[in-house]
């Protein structure tokens, strides 16, 4: 009995382990500065991840042209996590194993949270171009995390204040797409509004992406008599909601976020998009670096920059610059450098506060006018005439 049992255990162990071993493959190694780039490079969120990857490659090229960093060439290690937490661990460990010195990524907050634990243990500075979840910097759980994009709460605050102070609305409906990004934003917006007491939240609802129709929700907004809708989420849902609202001859103002400040939204929603507000990263079209970066992207990849391109570009620059300044790839040194030395990026001159948020990176408000997003001043009342 005893023998037989141990025999079986032994046996099975072997099979597992054996198979395990046979699958393992070799790892590359060379004396370069390894900049890991992790994010969704395939799957349904690839459009959010690839721009950052391209940006990183451009920056690397640029640095290498100038003789690299600390005299070493910059090497890009790019890994795909499809924005899935469970895959993000693999991606992260893979980067660590391949000896990445610093990591640019991840794209989605969920994946980032998963991966950060691993980078933290491995002592690797990580900088995201798009993970906006406040907890990442505010919880203090991740000292190794930096980002070149403002967090959701900042954006939510902007949206909320814009609605209350500029548009002077009293009744606000808040919608979100139940997603990490959208829902987080919506809840911050609600808490700000409720705290400020200047307006009341009459509807707070999550909508189901890809649902048969949103008329129920739209009706609800209508009945609630909300003057403005704040929507946290991405443009596909936003466009269909706006379309349905306009179809129903509702002139409720529509305020949304970065996920909606995307030209696709305007093209899809068409006429309905007119007058829609969306907050997005500060306008950098005047910034020569930005223009240069976009031009480089166009010439190299012959595509539009795409989401978070400039943030990615800035992040890559900041990281490599920090290594140069720190004269080392050691965790403490790099982190310190990031916090002390400002760096010129397409987003302007930025450095990082102790929590890891970039100082000087923020949002401004845009409105669709004749089929394009134009910046609207946040300070004085908006010129947009309220269709009342």
């Amino acid at each position: 009995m005893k023998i037989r049992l141990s025999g079986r255990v032994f046996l099975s162990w072997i099979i597992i382990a054996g198979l395990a071993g046979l699958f393992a493959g070799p790892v590359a190694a060379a004396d370069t500065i390894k900049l890991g780039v992790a994010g969704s490079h395939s799957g349904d969120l690839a459009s959010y991840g690839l721009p950052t990857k391209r940006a990183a490659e451009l920056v690397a090229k640029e640095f290498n042209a100038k003789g690299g960093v600390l005299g070493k060439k910059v090497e890009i290690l790019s890994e795909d996590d499809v924005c899935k937490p469970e895959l993000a661990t693999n991606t992260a460990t893979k980067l660590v194993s391949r000896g990445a010195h610093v990591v640019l990524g991840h794209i989605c907050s969920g994946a980032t949270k998963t991966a950060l634990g691993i980078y933290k243990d491995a002592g690797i500075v990580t900088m995201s171009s798009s993970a906006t979840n406040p907890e990442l910097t505010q919880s203090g759980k991740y000292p190794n995390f930096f980002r070149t994009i403002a967090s959701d709460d900042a954006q939510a605050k902007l949206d909320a204040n814009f609605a209350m102070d500029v548009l002077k609305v009293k009744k606000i409906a808040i919608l979100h797409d139940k997603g990490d990004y959208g829902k987080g934003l919506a809840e911050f917006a609600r808490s700000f509004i409720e705290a400020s007491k200047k307006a009341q939240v009459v509807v707070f609802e999550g909508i189901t992406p890809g649902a048969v129709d949103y008329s129920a929700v739209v009706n609800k907004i209508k009945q609630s008599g909300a003057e403005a809708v704040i929507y946290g989420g991405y443009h596909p849902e936003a466009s269909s909601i706006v379309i349905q609202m306009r179809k129903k001859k509702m002139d409720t103002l529509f305020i949304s976020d970065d996920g909606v400040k995307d030209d696709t939204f305007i093209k899809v929603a068409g006429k309905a998009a007119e007058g829609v507000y969306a907050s997005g990263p500060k306008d950098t079209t005047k910034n020569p670096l930005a223009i240069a970066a976009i031009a480089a992207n166009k010439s190299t990849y012959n595509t539009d920059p795409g989401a978070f391109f400039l943030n990615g570009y800035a992040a890559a620059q900041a990281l490599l610059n920090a290594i140069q300044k720190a004269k080392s790839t050691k965790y403490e040194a790099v982190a310190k450098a990031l916090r002390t030395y400002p760096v010129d990026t397409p987003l302007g001159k930025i450095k990082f506060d102790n929590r890891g948020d970039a100082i000087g990176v923020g949002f401004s408000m845009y409105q669709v006018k004749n089929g394009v997003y134009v910046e609207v001043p946040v300070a004085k009342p908006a010129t947009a005439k309220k269709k009342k």
Partner: protein
Amino acid sequence: MNAFAQIRQSLIIALWFMFLTFPILAVRVNTIEKVVEWRWPNMIYVGIGSFLISFVWRYFLERKAQGGKQGTHTALLGEATVQAMTVATPSVQATTATEVTPAGQAGAQTAKAPATATGKPFMQRIMAEPRLYRPVLMVLSLFGLAFPFLPFASTYQINIVTNALLYIMLGLGLNIVVGLAGLLHLGYVAFYAVGAYSYALLYYHFGIGFWVALPIGALFAAIFGIILGFPVLRLRGDYLAIVTLGFAEITRLVLENWNGFSFGPSGIAGIPRPGLFGMEMDLHQVTIYIYFLMIALCLFTIFVVNRLQNSRIGRAWVALREDEVACEAMGVDPTMAKLTAFALGSTWAGLAGVVFAAKTTFVNPASFTFLESAMILSIVVLGGMGSIVGVIIGAFILILLPEYLRAFSEYRMLLFGLIMVVMMIFRPQGIIVGIRQIYEFKKASAKEGNRQ
């Protein structure tokens, strides 16, 4: 059917598929830029592909038909598959052996029989020969033990292998429900989630550690399973499938929307990895530690499943799968049997869930979608329903291959879908056929066993 007819038929099929795939594959419209992209090459690929495949398809269909007549399962396709995966062959031998070796429950009577039973694939007959597989096992075992310390075994390597081990556990768990008891369970991931969240929440609220959470998570999952099982298990097979699917979706949606409870889509972060007497370990060490932890858990799972399989209860499950009416008429309480299977399956999902939470240190609903269930199911289907080795191999193929062939990871789900269909049609019993217990009786024992 003569060659000419064959070719004509294949040509027709090829044309049909070109017609079929034309709009989806050959045309792509960009409604934003208002441009149409024509991709004619695809059509050619489809044409040639379907032309060739149709031959293979027919060939195997005929094979199967003949096999059916003889009432014996032709292992040919299986062997082909196995050969194709270099790793599989030795291990196949390995555990078929474990399955042939009687679990010794029948005491003196039972002894290993030369697998002479007709209709057993040639391969498996070899496997029954200790001389043939023992040395291979030796090598493999040493390799497995040494694996994490080998030069090329980077943190990443170990990590993904651990991942595969996790899926082995899930596969074996689901195998109890689907493979043995024959209940199509499409909501398995729900119990996985229960396990993961129990650890996450227990830690978050009460700071409970991994080792305590492990059994608790399993227990919660089991309870959840029983609660779900009671009303549902009276339903017929296909309804059961859809209801479990429904339950899984409900679970996910609740996790997504009930912020107060589960922190919604932003999930719970910073879950500690399993500790070892409070020892400080760096990432690499922890990974190795988890690797061995998983190996241990897998062995435990294999051990338990194997015992159950060859027990009164295991037999009842199989009988239930084979013919529910007859099974009940033979005095087996189907509801009870189903419930046990369901509860046990859930328990393992729970265990795996806790490990998952500890391994990724983060849980959010995104990890528990229907596709996850589908993935686990296809592991079981590919490997062979009711066969432990099969599930192990299935997990390694389906989890590791996409990792290593990154280019092809895009096609992961496509492949899973395909596997389910193809396996069901050509080899429903999976790569490895679960072998039934074999008994041998010396006349003496028979006499003494005889009650007259």
